[in-house]
Protein backbone atom coordinates (compact mmCIF):
# COMPACT_ATOMS: atom_id res chain seq x y z
CA UNK A 1 0.00 0.00 0.00
CA UNK A 2 1.46 3.30 -0.96
CA UNK A 3 1.53 6.09 1.56
CA UNK A 4 -1.42 7.88 0.04
CA UNK A 5 -3.77 4.91 0.24
CA UNK A 6 -2.56 4.05 3.69
CA UNK A 7 -3.36 7.55 4.78
CA UNK A 8 -6.84 7.45 3.33
CA UNK A 9 -7.61 4.07 4.81
CA UNK A 10 -6.35 4.98 8.22
CA UNK A 11 -8.38 8.16 8.05
CA UNK A 12 -11.53 6.14 7.81
CA UNK A 13 -13.67 5.90 10.94
CA UNK A 14 -12.94 3.18 13.43
CA UNK A 15 -15.17 1.06 15.62
CA UNK A 16 -18.90 0.75 15.04
CA UNK A 17 -18.91 3.81 12.87
CA UNK A 18 -16.61 2.11 10.40
CA UNK A 19 -19.24 -0.53 9.63
CA UNK A 20 -21.76 2.04 8.38
CA UNK A 21 -19.09 4.11 6.75
CA UNK A 22 -17.53 1.14 4.90
CA UNK A 23 -20.90 -0.10 3.75
CA UNK A 24 -21.78 3.33 2.40
CA UNK A 25 -23.03 3.50 -1.18
CA UNK A 26 -19.92 5.35 -2.30
CA UNK A 27 -17.54 2.80 -0.83
CA UNK A 28 -16.14 -0.60 -1.52
CA UNK A 29 -17.31 -2.51 1.54
CA UNK A 30 -14.36 -4.77 2.22
CA UNK A 31 -11.39 -2.46 2.26
CA UNK A 32 -8.80 -4.82 3.61
CA UNK A 33 -10.01 -8.05 2.08
CA UNK A 34 -9.44 -9.00 -1.53
CA UNK A 35 -12.46 -10.18 -3.46
CA UNK A 36 -11.14 -13.70 -3.33
CA UNK A 37 -11.06 -13.53 0.42
CA UNK A 38 -14.49 -11.93 0.71
CA UNK A 39 -15.97 -14.59 -1.56
CA UNK A 40 -14.30 -17.38 0.38
CA UNK A 41 -15.74 -15.98 3.59
CA UNK A 42 -19.20 -15.83 2.08
CA UNK A 43 -18.85 -19.41 0.89
CA UNK A 44 -17.77 -20.40 4.39
CA UNK A 45 -20.84 -18.74 5.87
CA UNK A 46 -23.03 -20.81 3.56
CA UNK A 47 -21.07 -23.91 4.52
CA UNK A 48 -21.63 -23.03 8.15
CA UNK A 49 -25.35 -23.20 7.52
CA UNK A 50 -25.03 -26.59 5.87
CA UNK A 51 -23.05 -28.11 8.71
CA UNK A 52 -25.37 -26.46 11.21
CA UNK A 53 -28.32 -28.13 9.52
CA UNK A 54 -26.63 -31.48 10.00
CA UNK A 55 -25.74 -30.83 13.61
CA UNK A 56 -29.16 -29.42 14.44
CA UNK A 57 -30.85 -32.42 12.82
CA UNK A 58 -28.61 -34.61 14.90
CA UNK A 59 -29.65 -32.70 18.02
CA UNK A 60 -33.31 -33.09 17.09
CA UNK A 61 -33.24 -36.84 16.51
CA UNK A 62 -31.08 -37.42 19.55
CA UNK A 63 -33.46 -35.42 21.73
CA UNK A 64 -36.58 -37.06 20.36
CA UNK A 65 -35.59 -40.72 20.38
CA UNK A 66 -36.80 -42.82 23.26
CA UNK A 67 -34.10 -45.42 22.66
CA UNK A 68 -30.80 -44.98 24.45
CA UNK A 69 -28.14 -43.18 22.42
CA UNK A 70 -24.98 -45.23 21.82
CA UNK A 71 -21.89 -44.18 23.81
CA UNK A 72 -19.34 -42.72 21.41
CA UNK A 73 -16.72 -43.03 24.12
CA UNK A 74 -16.94 -46.82 23.95
CA UNK A 75 -17.72 -47.17 20.26
CA UNK A 76 -14.65 -45.18 19.24
CA UNK A 77 -12.35 -46.79 21.78
CA UNK A 78 -9.32 -48.66 20.55
CA UNK A 79 -7.46 -51.47 22.21
CA UNK A 80 -3.87 -50.50 22.90
CA UNK A 81 -1.64 -53.01 24.66
CA UNK A 82 -4.69 -55.00 25.61
CA UNK A 83 -6.24 -51.98 27.31
CA UNK A 84 -9.27 -50.16 25.97
CA UNK A 85 -8.61 -46.46 25.62
CA UNK A 86 -11.83 -44.46 25.19
CA UNK A 87 -12.26 -42.26 22.15
CA UNK A 88 -8.55 -42.43 21.40
CA UNK A 89 -8.94 -42.61 17.63
CA UNK A 90 -10.98 -39.41 17.57
CA UNK A 91 -8.47 -37.69 19.83
CA UNK A 92 -5.68 -38.62 17.45
CA UNK A 93 -7.72 -37.34 14.51
CA UNK A 94 -8.32 -34.08 16.36
CA UNK A 95 -4.64 -33.56 17.06
CA UNK A 96 -3.83 -34.46 13.48
CA UNK A 97 -6.21 -31.83 12.15
CA UNK A 98 -4.89 -29.19 14.55
CA UNK A 99 -1.37 -29.99 13.43
CA UNK A 100 -2.42 -29.45 9.84
CA UNK A 101 -4.05 -26.16 10.80
CA UNK A 102 -0.80 -25.02 12.36
CA UNK A 103 1.26 -25.90 9.30
CA UNK A 104 -1.32 -24.10 7.17
CA UNK A 105 -1.02 -20.93 9.25
CA UNK A 106 2.75 -21.09 8.91
CA UNK A 107 2.40 -21.63 5.17
CA UNK A 108 0.37 -18.43 4.85
CA UNK A 109 3.04 -16.63 6.81
CA UNK A 110 5.81 -18.06 4.64
CA UNK A 111 3.88 -17.07 1.52
CA UNK A 112 3.61 -13.46 2.55
CA UNK A 113 7.30 -13.55 3.43
CA UNK A 114 7.87 -14.68 -0.19
CA UNK A 115 9.57 -17.81 0.99
CA UNK A 116 8.04 -19.96 -1.70
CA UNK A 117 9.90 -23.20 -1.02
CA UNK A 118 9.08 -23.17 2.68
CA UNK A 119 5.52 -22.21 1.84
CA UNK A 120 5.14 -25.11 -0.59
CA UNK A 121 6.64 -27.57 1.86
CA UNK A 122 4.31 -26.43 4.60
CA UNK A 123 1.39 -26.84 2.20
CA UNK A 124 2.55 -30.38 1.50
CA UNK A 125 2.77 -31.06 5.20
CA UNK A 126 -0.78 -29.74 5.57
CA UNK A 127 -1.96 -31.97 2.72
CA UNK A 128 -0.19 -34.92 4.32
CA UNK A 129 -1.93 -34.43 7.65
CA UNK A 130 -5.22 -33.91 5.85
CA UNK A 131 -4.78 -37.15 3.93
CA UNK A 132 -3.86 -38.91 7.17
CA UNK A 133 -7.10 -37.62 8.66
CA UNK A 134 -9.12 -39.00 5.77
CA UNK A 135 -7.26 -42.28 6.12
CA UNK A 136 -8.14 -42.53 9.80
CA UNK A 137 -11.71 -41.70 8.99
CA UNK A 138 -11.80 -44.48 6.41
CA UNK A 139 -10.46 -46.82 9.10
CA UNK A 140 -13.14 -45.64 11.50
CA UNK A 141 -15.90 -46.15 8.94
CA UNK A 142 -14.62 -49.62 8.10
CA UNK A 143 -14.49 -50.56 11.77
CA UNK A 144 -18.02 -49.36 12.43
CA UNK A 145 -19.44 -50.96 9.31
CA UNK A 146 -17.88 -54.27 10.36
CA UNK A 147 -19.50 -53.87 13.75
CA UNK A 148 -22.87 -53.58 12.05
CA UNK A 149 -23.44 -49.82 12.14
CA UNK A 150 -25.64 -48.75 9.24
CA UNK A 151 -27.43 -45.50 8.44
CA UNK A 152 -30.69 -47.23 9.36
CA UNK A 153 -29.65 -49.41 12.31
CA UNK A 154 -26.85 -50.32 14.65
CA UNK A 155 -26.31 -52.83 17.43
CA UNK A 156 -25.54 -50.21 20.09
CA UNK A 157 -28.79 -48.29 20.48
CA UNK A 158 -30.79 -45.61 18.70
CA UNK A 159 -30.87 -46.22 14.96
CA UNK A 160 -30.40 -42.51 14.27
CA UNK A 161 -26.83 -42.74 15.50
CA UNK A 162 -25.77 -44.36 12.25
CA UNK A 163 -27.42 -41.84 9.96
CA UNK A 164 -25.99 -38.91 11.90
CA UNK A 165 -22.55 -40.46 12.03
CA UNK A 166 -22.26 -41.25 8.33
CA UNK A 167 -23.84 -38.00 7.21
CA UNK A 168 -21.86 -35.64 9.42
CA UNK A 169 -18.45 -37.28 9.32
CA UNK A 170 -18.92 -38.14 5.67
CA UNK A 171 -19.64 -34.58 4.70
CA UNK A 172 -16.74 -33.34 6.78
CA UNK A 173 -14.42 -35.97 5.33
CA UNK A 174 -15.46 -34.87 1.86
CA UNK A 175 -14.48 -31.32 2.74
CA UNK A 176 -11.10 -32.49 3.98
CA UNK A 177 -10.55 -34.52 0.82
CA UNK A 178 -11.35 -31.57 -1.43
CA UNK A 179 -9.06 -29.44 0.73
CA UNK A 180 -6.21 -31.89 0.24
CA UNK A 181 -6.68 -31.73 -3.54
CA UNK A 182 -6.73 -27.93 -3.43
CA UNK A 183 -3.62 -27.89 -1.25
CA UNK A 184 -1.75 -30.10 -3.69
CA UNK A 185 -2.85 -27.98 -6.61
CA UNK A 186 -1.85 -24.65 -5.12
CA UNK A 187 1.34 -25.98 -3.57
CA UNK A 188 2.44 -26.82 -7.10
CA UNK A 189 1.81 -23.20 -8.11
CA UNK A 190 3.69 -21.92 -5.08
CA UNK A 191 6.63 -24.24 -5.63
CA UNK A 192 6.87 -23.13 -9.27
CA UNK A 193 6.86 -19.52 -8.16
CA UNK A 194 3.67 -18.59 -10.02
CA UNK A 195 2.86 -15.88 -7.53
CA UNK A 196 6.17 -14.15 -8.14
CA UNK A 197 6.60 -14.73 -11.87
CA UNK A 198 3.11 -13.49 -12.74
CA UNK A 199 2.30 -16.74 -14.43
CA UNK A 200 -1.40 -16.90 -15.16
CA UNK A 201 -3.69 -19.36 -13.44
CA UNK A 202 -4.62 -22.57 -15.25
CA UNK A 203 -8.35 -22.16 -14.67
CA UNK A 204 -8.68 -18.43 -14.21
CA UNK A 205 -6.06 -17.14 -16.63
CA UNK A 206 -5.40 -14.44 -14.07
CA UNK A 207 -2.26 -13.45 -12.29
CA UNK A 208 -2.27 -14.62 -8.69
CA UNK A 209 -0.65 -13.39 -5.53
CA UNK A 210 0.18 -15.01 -2.21
CA UNK A 211 -3.26 -13.83 -1.17
CA UNK A 212 -4.41 -17.12 -2.68
CA UNK A 213 -2.55 -19.08 -0.04
CA UNK A 214 -4.33 -17.13 2.66
CA UNK A 215 -7.72 -17.77 1.05
CA UNK A 216 -6.88 -21.45 0.79
CA UNK A 217 -5.91 -21.27 4.44
CA UNK A 218 -9.31 -19.86 5.31
CA UNK A 219 -10.95 -22.95 3.81
CA UNK A 220 -8.59 -25.28 5.61
CA UNK A 221 -9.01 -23.61 8.99
CA UNK A 222 -12.75 -23.75 8.47
CA UNK A 223 -12.56 -27.50 8.03
CA UNK A 224 -10.69 -27.65 11.33
CA UNK A 225 -13.27 -25.34 12.88
CA UNK A 226 -16.12 -27.60 11.84
CA UNK A 227 -14.30 -30.53 13.36
CA UNK A 228 -14.12 -28.66 16.67
CA UNK A 229 -17.91 -28.57 16.70
CA UNK A 230 -18.33 -32.16 15.51
CA UNK A 231 -15.85 -33.33 18.12
CA UNK A 232 -17.72 -31.50 20.88
CA UNK A 233 -21.28 -32.31 19.89
CA UNK A 234 -21.07 -35.70 18.26
CA UNK A 235 -18.17 -37.43 19.98
CA UNK A 236 -18.04 -35.86 23.43
CA UNK A 237 -21.62 -34.90 24.22
Amino acid at each position, binding site marked *: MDAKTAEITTQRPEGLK*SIFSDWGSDQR*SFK*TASWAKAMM*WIFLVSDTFIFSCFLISYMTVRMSTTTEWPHP*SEIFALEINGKKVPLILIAIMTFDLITSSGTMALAVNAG*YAKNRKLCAMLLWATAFFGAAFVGMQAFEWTKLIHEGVRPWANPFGAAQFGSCFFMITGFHGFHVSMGVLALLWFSKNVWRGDYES*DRRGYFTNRIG*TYDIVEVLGLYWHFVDLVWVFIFAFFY*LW
Partner: protein
Amino acid sequence: MTSITEGAITDTAHDAHVSPDAHASHATQADHHGGHGSAPAGGHGPDAHGQQHPLKLYLLVWALLFVLSTFSYLVDYFNFQGYARWTLILIFMFLKAGAIVAIFMHMAWERLALVYAILLPPLALTVFMGMMAFEGGYTNGSREAHFDAPLPIAAPEHEGAAAEPAQGAAVEHAREAAPVVAKPVELAAAPAAAPAEPSKAVGSTSGRHAWAPEWLTSAEPAPAASAAERPKAAESSPGAWAPEWLRK
Protein backbone atom coordinates in the same frame (compact mmCIF):
# COMPACT_ATOMS: atom_id res chain seq x y z
CA MET B 1 -18.19 15.37 -1.81
CA THR B 2 -15.00 14.70 0.05
CA SER B 3 -16.11 11.24 1.00
CA ILE B 4 -16.82 10.36 -2.62
CA THR B 5 -13.38 11.48 -3.66
CA GLU B 6 -11.83 9.53 -0.84
CA GLY B 7 -13.72 6.45 -1.79
CA ALA B 8 -12.68 6.76 -5.37
CA ILE B 9 -9.04 7.04 -4.47
CA THR B 10 -9.20 4.15 -2.10
CA ASP B 11 -10.83 1.96 -4.67
CA THR B 12 -8.33 2.85 -7.34
CA ALA B 13 -5.51 1.88 -5.08
CA HIS B 14 -7.39 -1.23 -4.15
CA ASP B 15 -7.68 -2.25 -7.78
CA ALA B 16 -3.96 -2.14 -8.13
CA HIS B 17 -4.12 -5.42 -6.30
CA VAL B 18 -5.00 -7.32 -9.44
CA SER B 19 -2.65 -5.50 -11.74
CA PRO B 20 0.41 -7.51 -12.70
CA ASP B 21 3.02 -5.05 -11.56
CA ALA B 22 1.66 -4.75 -8.08
CA HIS B 23 4.02 -7.47 -6.98
CA ALA B 24 7.15 -5.44 -7.16
CA SER B 25 6.72 -3.61 -3.91
CA HIS B 26 5.56 -6.69 -2.10
CA ALA B 27 8.96 -7.98 -1.14
CA THR B 28 9.53 -5.05 1.12
CA GLN B 29 6.62 -6.06 3.27
CA ALA B 30 8.30 -9.01 4.85
CA ASP B 31 8.30 -7.39 8.26
CA HIS B 32 5.24 -8.10 10.28
CA HIS B 33 2.82 -5.83 11.98
CA GLY B 34 1.35 -7.39 15.04
CA GLY B 35 -0.40 -5.71 17.86
CA HIS B 36 -2.80 -3.49 16.02
CA GLY B 37 -6.51 -3.74 16.49
CA SER B 38 -9.11 -3.34 13.82
CA ALA B 39 -6.97 -1.11 11.66
CA PRO B 40 -4.80 -3.49 9.69
CA ALA B 41 -4.59 -1.11 6.79
CA GLY B 42 -1.77 0.90 8.21
CA GLY B 43 1.48 -0.54 6.97
CA HIS B 44 0.08 -3.53 5.15
CA GLY B 45 1.22 -4.83 1.82
CA PRO B 46 0.12 -3.04 -1.29
CA ASP B 47 -1.43 -5.84 -3.23
CA ALA B 48 -2.28 -8.43 -0.69
CA HIS B 49 -3.71 -6.45 2.17
CA GLY B 50 -1.13 -8.77 3.64
CA GLN B 51 -1.89 -10.57 6.79
CA GLN B 52 1.54 -11.08 8.22
CA HIS B 53 1.78 -11.60 11.90
CA PRO B 54 4.45 -12.68 14.32
CA LEU B 55 5.36 -16.31 14.01
CA LYS B 56 5.38 -16.48 17.77
CA LEU B 57 1.67 -15.69 17.89
CA TYR B 58 0.85 -18.55 15.52
CA LEU B 59 2.94 -20.98 17.53
CA LEU B 60 1.28 -19.83 20.72
CA VAL B 61 -2.21 -20.34 19.32
CA TRP B 62 -1.14 -23.68 17.91
CA ALA B 63 0.03 -24.80 21.33
CA LEU B 64 -3.15 -23.45 22.89
CA LEU B 65 -5.27 -25.51 20.50
CA PHE B 66 -3.36 -28.62 21.49
CA VAL B 67 -3.84 -27.91 25.16
CA LEU B 68 -7.55 -27.18 24.78
CA SER B 69 -8.08 -30.31 22.70
CA THR B 70 -6.32 -32.32 25.36
CA PHE B 71 -8.64 -30.82 27.96
CA SER B 72 -11.66 -31.69 25.81
CA TYR B 73 -10.44 -35.23 25.53
CA LEU B 74 -9.80 -35.46 29.26
CA VAL B 75 -13.41 -34.49 29.89
CA ASP B 76 -14.29 -37.80 28.30
CA TYR B 77 -11.33 -39.71 29.68
CA PHE B 78 -12.14 -38.82 33.28
CA ASN B 79 -15.79 -39.39 32.53
CA PHE B 80 -17.27 -36.11 33.69
CA GLN B 81 -21.05 -36.31 33.52
CA GLY B 82 -24.07 -34.04 33.55
CA TYR B 83 -23.76 -30.29 33.65
CA ALA B 84 -20.04 -30.32 34.41
CA ARG B 85 -19.44 -32.30 31.23
CA TRP B 86 -21.58 -30.07 29.01
CA THR B 87 -20.18 -26.86 30.43
CA LEU B 88 -16.56 -27.99 30.03
CA ILE B 89 -17.17 -29.24 26.50
CA LEU B 90 -18.76 -25.95 25.46
CA ILE B 91 -16.07 -23.80 27.09
CA PHE B 92 -13.22 -25.64 25.39
CA MET B 93 -15.13 -25.72 22.11
CA PHE B 94 -15.76 -21.99 22.03
CA LEU B 95 -12.20 -21.17 23.10
CA LYS B 96 -10.85 -23.33 20.29
CA ALA B 97 -13.27 -21.93 17.73
CA GLY B 98 -12.46 -18.39 18.82
CA ALA B 99 -8.72 -18.92 18.56
CA ILE B 100 -9.03 -20.44 15.09
CA VAL B 101 -11.30 -17.73 13.72
CA ALA B 102 -9.54 -14.78 15.35
CA ILE B 103 -5.91 -15.70 14.78
CA PHE B 104 -5.61 -18.45 12.17
CA MET B 105 -8.37 -16.98 10.02
CA HIS B 106 -7.19 -13.43 10.74
CA MET B 107 -10.57 -12.12 11.81
CA ALA B 108 -8.90 -10.11 14.57
CA TRP B 109 -7.25 -7.91 11.95
CA GLU B 110 -10.08 -7.47 9.48
CA ARG B 111 -12.16 -4.35 9.39
CA LEU B 112 -15.45 -4.57 11.24
CA ALA B 113 -17.42 -4.27 7.98
CA LEU B 114 -16.23 -7.78 7.10
CA VAL B 115 -16.24 -9.18 10.63
CA TYR B 116 -19.88 -8.31 11.21
CA ALA B 117 -20.99 -9.36 7.73
CA ILE B 118 -19.51 -12.81 8.35
CA LEU B 119 -20.02 -13.47 12.03
CA LEU B 120 -23.50 -12.04 12.60
CA PRO B 121 -25.60 -14.10 10.13
CA PRO B 122 -24.74 -17.44 11.75
CA LEU B 123 -26.29 -16.15 14.97
CA ALA B 124 -29.66 -16.77 13.30
CA LEU B 125 -28.81 -20.42 13.82
CA THR B 126 -29.42 -20.06 17.53
CA VAL B 127 -33.07 -19.36 16.72
CA PHE B 128 -33.18 -22.44 14.49
CA MET B 129 -31.51 -24.44 17.24
CA GLY B 130 -34.04 -23.21 19.78
CA MET B 131 -36.98 -24.14 17.58
CA MET B 132 -35.64 -27.60 16.89
CA ALA B 133 -34.82 -28.17 20.55
CA PHE B 134 -38.42 -27.31 21.33
CA GLU B 135 -39.70 -29.63 18.66
CA GLY B 136 -37.29 -32.41 19.66
CA GLY B 137 -38.45 -32.15 23.26
CA TYR B 138 -42.07 -32.21 22.22
CA THR B 139 -41.59 -35.26 19.98
CA ASN B 140 -39.79 -37.03 22.77
CA GLY B 141 -42.57 -36.18 25.19
CA SER B 142 -45.28 -37.50 22.92
CA ARG B 143 -43.30 -40.66 22.23
CA GLU B 144 -42.81 -41.24 25.94
CA ALA B 145 -46.53 -40.73 26.45
CA HIS B 146 -47.86 -42.84 23.60
CA PHE B 147 -45.31 -45.48 22.68
CA ASP B 148 -45.84 -48.18 25.26
CA ALA B 149 -44.10 -50.96 23.37
CA PRO B 150 -40.53 -51.08 22.08
CA LEU B 151 -40.04 -49.42 18.75
CA PRO B 152 -40.60 -49.79 15.90
CA ILE B 153 -43.89 -51.32 14.76
CA ALA B 154 -43.88 -54.90 15.96
CA ALA B 155 -46.04 -57.81 14.99
CA PRO B 156 -49.12 -58.38 17.18
CA GLU B 157 -48.57 -60.35 20.36
CA HIS B 158 -49.87 -63.74 19.29
CA GLU B 159 -47.65 -63.87 16.25
CA GLY B 160 -44.64 -62.79 18.21
CA ALA B 161 -45.39 -65.42 20.81
CA ALA B 162 -45.56 -68.08 18.15
CA ALA B 163 -42.19 -67.11 16.85
CA GLU B 164 -40.61 -66.78 20.27
CA PRO B 165 -39.63 -70.38 21.04
CA ALA B 166 -38.17 -70.96 17.63
CA GLN B 167 -36.12 -67.80 17.18
CA GLY B 168 -36.44 -65.62 20.20
CA ALA B 169 -33.19 -63.81 19.56
CA ALA B 170 -34.09 -63.06 15.99
CA VAL B 171 -37.41 -61.55 17.00
CA GLU B 172 -35.72 -59.34 19.54
CA HIS B 173 -33.32 -58.18 16.91
CA ALA B 174 -36.03 -57.58 14.40
CA ARG B 175 -37.99 -55.41 16.77
CA GLU B 176 -35.00 -53.28 17.56
CA ALA B 177 -33.77 -53.00 14.06
CA ALA B 178 -36.39 -52.12 11.50
CA PRO B 179 -39.89 -52.98 10.34
CA VAL B 180 -38.58 -54.48 7.14
CA VAL B 181 -36.74 -57.08 9.15
CA ALA B 182 -39.74 -57.80 11.32
CA LYS B 183 -41.61 -59.27 8.43
CA PRO B 184 -39.19 -62.03 7.47
CA VAL B 185 -39.27 -63.37 11.02
CA GLU B 186 -42.98 -63.63 10.75
CA LEU B 187 -42.62 -65.47 7.48
CA ALA B 188 -40.18 -67.86 9.01
CA ALA B 189 -42.51 -68.65 11.86
CA ALA B 190 -45.46 -69.22 9.55
CA PRO B 191 -44.16 -70.12 6.11
CA ALA B 192 -47.60 -71.18 5.01
CA ALA B 193 -48.99 -67.66 5.33
CA ALA B 194 -50.12 -66.25 2.06
CA PRO B 195 -47.52 -63.71 0.89
CA ALA B 196 -50.17 -61.91 -1.13
CA GLU B 197 -51.68 -60.36 2.02
CA PRO B 198 -48.80 -59.77 4.33
CA SER B 199 -50.23 -56.70 6.00
CA LYS B 200 -53.50 -58.12 7.22
CA ALA B 201 -52.30 -59.43 10.53
CA VAL B 202 -49.98 -56.54 11.29
CA GLY B 203 -52.58 -53.91 10.66
CA SER B 204 -55.26 -55.55 12.77
CA THR B 205 -57.47 -53.27 14.78
CA SER B 206 -56.20 -54.58 18.10
CA GLY B 207 -52.67 -53.25 17.59
CA ARG B 208 -51.49 -49.91 18.92
CA HIS B 209 -51.25 -48.59 15.39
CA ALA B 210 -54.83 -49.43 14.64
CA TRP B 211 -55.51 -45.80 13.78
CA ALA B 212 -53.06 -45.84 10.91
CA PRO B 213 -54.01 -46.86 7.37
CA GLU B 214 -53.05 -50.34 6.43
CA TRP B 215 -50.40 -49.37 3.92
CA LEU B 216 -48.57 -47.51 6.67
CA THR B 217 -48.58 -50.25 9.26
CA SER B 218 -47.81 -53.08 6.88
CA ALA B 219 -44.26 -54.21 6.97
CA GLU B 220 -43.91 -54.81 3.27
CA PRO B 221 -40.87 -56.97 2.55
CA ALA B 222 -38.12 -55.32 0.62
CA PRO B 223 -38.43 -56.30 -3.03
CA ALA B 224 -34.71 -56.84 -3.44
CA ALA B 225 -34.34 -60.00 -1.39
CA SER B 226 -36.30 -63.14 -2.10
CA ALA B 227 -38.57 -64.62 0.53
CA ALA B 228 -36.29 -67.60 0.94
CA GLU B 229 -33.28 -65.50 1.86
CA ARG B 230 -34.84 -63.10 4.26
CA PRO B 231 -35.60 -65.30 7.27
CA LYS B 232 -32.03 -66.49 7.27
CA ALA B 233 -30.77 -62.93 7.23
CA ALA B 234 -32.86 -61.87 10.17
CA GLU B 235 -31.21 -64.44 12.39
CA SER B 236 -27.85 -62.72 12.55
CA SER B 237 -27.14 -59.01 12.78
CA PRO B 238 -29.55 -56.22 11.82
CA GLY B 239 -27.65 -55.35 8.68
CA ALA B 240 -27.22 -58.92 7.60
CA TRP B 241 -29.52 -58.66 4.63
CA ALA B 242 -27.17 -56.12 3.08
CA PRO B 243 -25.11 -57.28 0.11
CA GLU B 244 -21.98 -59.25 0.83
CA TRP B 245 -19.51 -56.49 -0.10
CA LEU B 246 -21.13 -54.09 2.33
CA ARG B 247 -21.10 -56.50 5.21
CA LYS B 248 -17.45 -57.59 5.15
